[in-house]
């Protein structure tokens, strides 16, 4: 069985709480028997120039050190327009597995045709996925799941991961996943009942485990994994959600590191 946390954050010391080295991040994974993490810079890692260049580069280095465990999504501030598109292209060509957007922190609607779409066109061309922070109550106007539905509709070949499954708007997130086959629901902060509802509505293939680590604290990955395990779904569904799905969708090629898991 492969376990992959599809939504985490990682940055160097001073820019985020620990872990702050690839070795320490892998140690966290080992402790919880997580094979790999998809990770992206947190908002706290933004630089004075309002880009995430340093933070993305830090993750690029981490990926080089642990290519089978650490899978980065480059975080892009879309307000830099053409330069943001250039950055996205550069990071995707460096080996990032996709792009992370945080519409609330970057103050941009998830489906902004001028600021967001040109970046996703690069993902469409170069490959990878996009991950959106979503959710009421904190992101209304910028990141409700319906806006991600518009993105999924506009880029049908790009996997669109709806972070936190829309939080309190999880029903909306499940609906857009029902309507668009390239919508992926990430489970962090949702209850076992909500995870089961997602599976009942769209099937298990496009629901993926995520923790938002370290935002949920050092124990977030364990608690969020426990929610998947407590959901009233089959054992096979749980395996798919905990790792097989994201491994397949993003073509990560992660192998199991732990016997008997």
């Amino acid at each position: 069985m492969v376990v992959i946390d599809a939504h985490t954050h990682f940055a160097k010391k001073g820019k985020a709480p620990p872990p702050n080295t690839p070795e320490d991040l892998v140690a966290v994974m080992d402790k919880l028997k997580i094979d790999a993490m998809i990770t992206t810079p947190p908002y706290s890692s933004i630089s004075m120039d309002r880009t995430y260049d340093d933070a993305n580069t830090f993750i690029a280095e981490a990926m080089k050190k642990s290519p089978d465990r650490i899978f980065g999504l480059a975080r892009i501030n879309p307000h830099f327009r053409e330069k943001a598109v250039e950055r996205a292209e550069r990071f995707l060509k460096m080996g990032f597995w996709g792009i992370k957007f945080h519409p609330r922190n970057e103050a941009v609607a998830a489906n902004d045709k001028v600021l967001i779409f040109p970046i996703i066109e690069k993902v469409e061309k170069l490959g990878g996925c996009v991950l959106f922070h979503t959710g009421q109550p904190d992101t209304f106007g910028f990141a409700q799941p319906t806006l991600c539905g518009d993105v999924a509709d506009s880029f049908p070949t790009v996997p669109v991961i709806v972070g936190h499954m829309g939080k309190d708007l999880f029903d909306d997130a499940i609906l857009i996943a029902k309507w668009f086959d390239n919508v992926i629901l990430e489970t962090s902060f949702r209850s076992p009942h909500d995870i089961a509802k997602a599976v009942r509505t769209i099937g298990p293939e496009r629901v993926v485990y995520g923790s938002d680590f370290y935002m949920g604290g050092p124990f977030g990955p364990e608690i969020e994994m426990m929610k998947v395990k407590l959901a009233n779904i089959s054992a096979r569904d749980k395996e798919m959600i905990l790792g097989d799905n994201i491994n397949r969708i993003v073509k990560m090629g992660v192998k199991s590191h732990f016997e008997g898991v």
Partner: protein
Amino acid sequence: MVVIDALAFVGETLYWKMSAEELVKRMDKNGIEMAVATPPPPGPDYTEANKVVYEATRKYPKRIIGFYRVNPHYGEKVLKEAEAAVKEWGFKGFKLDPTNEAYGVTSQIVENVMEVARALKVPVFFHTGDSQFCPPEGVGDVARMYPKVTVMMHASAGGLRAAVSQPNVVLATGPMGGPRMLDSMYDSFDLRRVVFSSRMPIGFPELELRIMQLSLLSEDRKSLVMGENLKRILGL
């Protein structure tokens, strides 16, 4: 460590049911000694649903504590029932859900219930947070108006703000706040006003108990939250 759950449901909804037997079974499985039980939605009249909880408390008097669910829209009828529930049937508090029953938490009909609670010296547990009817800050306003009534609600950022300024507010853990939230929140808060809750079967005691285990609180402080506080508040 004694574990007392400040909120669980007994009864039947459109989608699920929880019998007294099933509740006790789940309590046993999770090492929960006692639990507050109240009827689940939809209502609107909870007279029969409260009787189900009453029967549960009769069957398991050492395990299940009843909180009478009040729909204040029913006026005098429900106020009399609520009074009898405490005086004659052994209910230990009231449960109000302004979202489900559609009333503002600061409206007159809530004040009527609070008057009864004040006279009977029982706590009132408010559902909060998911609608304009019951923001935690509104529950804080009610607590300010009735400083002698213990006002309970689930922990949240708004609930914490209300609780810091209102010493009669008690916060229940969950739903599913992580250990970090628990630790950061309770660093600056009087832990004698925090009680463990699972909201089962909507919530999961396994999850909430694990979060408590992972919390960095000392064992003494955990013991307060897990049961000692509610024991004191309800006079158990």
